[in-house]
């Protein structure tokens, strides 16, 4: 099993790419083979990641495990260094599972213009980029995985999307690229001010970069700005969120699921993994501003959600708000806050993934995404679908006992007592405003349910026999719904995992 530990992460990350290449060389007519290859590729990655989960040493969740560290680019000292700890692990597992579920869902349902070959190949490529981001420990390697998701997602939106698909796709690409290249400049600046304790040269290694001084606070602040631009656009934080409603709203169903569930987390993860440990002093200076932006995002997301007429855009804006809670948790720089953030990331991943799946399936039946056109009366027309929607929406608004609750409540709680040196009164203000946000969130979700589910079926839908939830949909959704309940009942499943690594990190801020 020694070998497994060495190879497992590489397999999880690169097997999907291998299968993407296999799919690319499969003849176009062999659609069955294409679907099957996609299932095997994503399934294998998921199984290996689950074995990793099983073999993970939970007592040592703060230390890096499953290390692979090989020479890669000698001239700049970049290494092929991947590994995971308690913070990466839940995100990695969530990634592989959700990719697999997306592939399952797409076995039967691919939006026009069809072309399963390209569709699956791109999803598998995305999988490599996303899971690689969560395990890379070298900044260069991290950056490559980070950028690797752009091209496949661009084409997923531009080819299989709806309405203004080309516009949304290019907006997504340009926005993210702008941020990420500034982030790269930040990485390079860190590199040139660093000293590798082993070789004496410079280093891109995240672990070795942590704890270096980089010559003064002004420099750290400037670098933090670069990193912040990259991460904040990805999250997205207010005011960089404007690409999100377009991209999420117009992406195909599984594209929205992958964007919301996984790709947004790349940004928040990067804050925790890179910005905080490497630039702790700058982080402390930036934290109040980040908290402020996060609070604005919570309120802004909720208010915009209230105003949406399109169900997918509504869910998209709700993501802005939810990611606001995650960022608020991070900005407190406390163990509670960061644990809440990671929990919130996972919870948002499963819940919003579920909501986007539902939005897609509802669109498949009604061929409209306008809430007023679909509803009212979906509970009568599609009782199971309506029920699942109610369940997911209530989970998303943060009902205790379901997954959405803990991330929000713990984030607010952590703002009550932020890390030493941060203004308590300011963060308490954020807490109160965030709490107002939760009320608004509950408001728009309940209103959504009222408009969609309740009431009588209008005349235009009478006599149409919509197929209720299909087997393939049950198959893809059941794991998500189970985890919504499971995480709600036993949040320790995630927080016990993250706590070790998180408290090691927050020692920097006490």
């Amino acid at each position, binding site marked *: 099993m020694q070998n497994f530990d060495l190879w497992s992460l590489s397999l999880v990350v690169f097997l999907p790419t291998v299968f993407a290449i296999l799919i690319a060389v499969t003849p176009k007519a062999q659609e069955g083979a294409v679907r099957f290859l996609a299932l095997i590729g994503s399934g294998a990655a998921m199984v290996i990641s689950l074995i990793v989960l099983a073999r993970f040493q939970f007592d040592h969740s703060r230390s890096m495990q499953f290390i692979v560290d090989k020479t890669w680019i000698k001239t700049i000292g970049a290494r092929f260094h991947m590994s995971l700890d308690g913070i990466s692990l839940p995100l990695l597992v969530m990634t592989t599972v959700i990719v697999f579920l997306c592939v399952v869902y797409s076995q039967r349902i691919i939006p026009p213009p069809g072309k399963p070959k390209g569709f699956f190949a791109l999803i598998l490529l995305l999988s490599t980029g996303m899971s690689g981001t969560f395990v890379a420990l070298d900044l260069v390697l991290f950056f490559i995985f980070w950028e690797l998701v752009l091209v496949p997602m661009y084409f997923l939106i531009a080819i299989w999307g709806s309405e203004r698909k080309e516009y949304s796709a*290019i907006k997504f690409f340009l926005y993210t690229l702008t941020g990420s*290249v500034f982030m790269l*400049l930040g990485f390079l600046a860190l590199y040139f001010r660093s000293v590798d304790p082993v070789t004496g040269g410079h280093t891109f290694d995240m672990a070795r970069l942590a704890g270096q001084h980089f010559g003064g606070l002004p420099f750290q602040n400037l670098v933090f700005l670069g990193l912040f631009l990259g991460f904040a656009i990805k999250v997205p934080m207010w005011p960089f969120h404007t690409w999100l409603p377009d991209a999420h709203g117009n992406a195909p169903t599984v594209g929205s699921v992958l964007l919301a569930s996984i790709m947004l987390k790349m940004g928040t993860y990067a804050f925790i993994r890179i910005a905080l440990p490497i630039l702790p002093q700058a982080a402390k200076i930036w934290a109040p501003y980040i908290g402020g932006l996060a609070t604005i995002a919570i309120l802004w997301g909720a208010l915009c959600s209230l105003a949406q007429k399109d169900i997918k855009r509504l869910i998209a804006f709700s993501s802005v708000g939810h990611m606001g809670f995650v960022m608020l948790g991070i900005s407190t720089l406390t163990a509670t806050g960061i644990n809440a953030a990671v929990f919130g990331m996972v919870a948002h991943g499963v819940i919003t993934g579920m909501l986007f799946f539902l939005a897609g399936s509802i669109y498949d039946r009604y061929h409209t995404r306008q809430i007023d056109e679909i509803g009212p009366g979906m509970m009568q027309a599609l009782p199971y679908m309506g029920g699942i929607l109610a369940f997911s929406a209530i989970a998303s608004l943060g009902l205790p006992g379901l997954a959405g609750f803990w991330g929000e409540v713990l984030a607010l709680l952590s703002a009550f007592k932020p890390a030493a040196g941060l203004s308590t009164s300011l963060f308490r203000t954020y807490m109160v405003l965030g709490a107002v946000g939760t009320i608004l969130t509950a408001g728009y979700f309940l209103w959504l349910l009222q408009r969609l589910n309740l009431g009588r079926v209008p005349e235009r839908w009478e006599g149409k026999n919509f197929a209720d939830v299909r087997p393939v949909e049950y198959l893809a959704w059941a794991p998500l719904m189970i985890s919504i309940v499971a995480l709600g009942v036993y949040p320790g499943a995630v927080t016990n995992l993250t706590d070790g690594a998180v408290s090691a990190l927050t020692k920097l801020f006490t």
Partner: protein
Amino acid sequence: MPTTLDLHAVLPEIILSGTLLAVLVVDLFLRDERKLWNSVIAMAGVLGSFWATLTLIGDHRATFNGMFVVDSFALLFKLMFLAVAALVILISANYLDEGVRSTQGEFYFLLLSSFLGMLLMASSRDFLMLFVALELVSAPGFLVAGFKKRDARSNEAAVKFFLFGVLSTAVMLFGMSLIYGVTKSTNLVAVGQALAHPAARSEPLIVASILFIVAGFGFKVSAVPFHFWAPDTYEGSPVPVAAFLSVASKAAGFAGLLQLMFVAFPHQSNVWAPGFAIMAVATMTLGNIVALAQTNIVRLLAYSSIAQAGYMLLPFAVVGGAGPAVMRQAFAASLTYILIYSFMNLGAFAVVIVVNRKRSSNLIADYDGLMSREPGLTTAMLFFLLSLAGIPPLAGFWAKFFVFSAAINGNAAWLAAVMVLNSVIGLYYYLSIGARMVLRPAEDQSRIGVPFALAAAIILLVIIVVAVGVFPDFFNHFSPRSTLVAL
């Protein structure tokens, strides 16, 4: 000083000269339908010369009184020029055989002459030699640009290229003569030493002559404001010639510029670096912004190549008064960018040549729906375009990466920021071609058909772009070993 001729050192040049004469002679005896053999001979000569260059690896030789030097810098450029020559022959063969069948021999003669000039350029360590080499690169270029003899645009291309070319050469020569007047030497190293004197560092006469010389090279590499010829010339020339000009001629210009700035004028870097900063920013910004508005693919690639030249010039801008470490790094960054750019840009042009076989208008609209007609070719084009845009893990990313590194290490964060914004603009137009190929419906659903030679070149280039992207050490470990910058 005894004058001995080191024949081994000039063997690559000798083989290439022999080949170009052979092509000229053999051509006389070939009937029209057999003219394709010219390309085979040319290819054999290029490969022979490549082999001869390989035998020199690791050597450090000087001959012709030190005017001609073989070192790792020279060898790296020679290998690259010969590889580009082989690829240019591969992508031109069908085009010429179908287009200007009877005069193919002349074309290969001119092409090889130009490449001979490039090989010399890489080895020149002397103003005179540099000048002769540069002329040998340019003069055949003027002729091949006008190779579509009955096409008015092609004529215009040649005339424009010629007029701009000779004017800038004259200006450059004037600058060189002034430097000779001050330093009494034409040897680059000797000039560098003579100009190291503190009094020479900002002497107006020297500054003026550097300005003249840079202007001359600025024309070669199509840097703003010396770029006006490039779009018209590329558009009017036969497409393989445009490919050749955009890659080889630009690389030759940079080979010369790197030597001049880092060997002869390093002590004036305080003076010229800010000038390069302005030039680099203007070049990349103008190239990118004008590229946005293009409807012709060759013109678009012309403006994109101007923008790319801006990125290559950027490392020159960060060395003002900097230490040797920054200088070496800037040198390596520019060098790496040129190498990588050559291959990815050649790839994009190779695809243009293929599409041009079906419809010669070269409009970007011709690429609509290419994915459904030629999926393999389209995928290759996507690789080249994304590489030009600098998306990892393709080769073009590393080119940008090293330039960014040089800028950050040289404390020129603002230049890096300008380049970031430019990369984003660049991505937009590269990607919009990609989007058209994939998303738009094709008017004409017929397949295009990729001839063997072109297919081979394209596959080779895709492999290079991907392999270098995944293992960038492959290219980059050449450049720091360059003994040229012995600062």
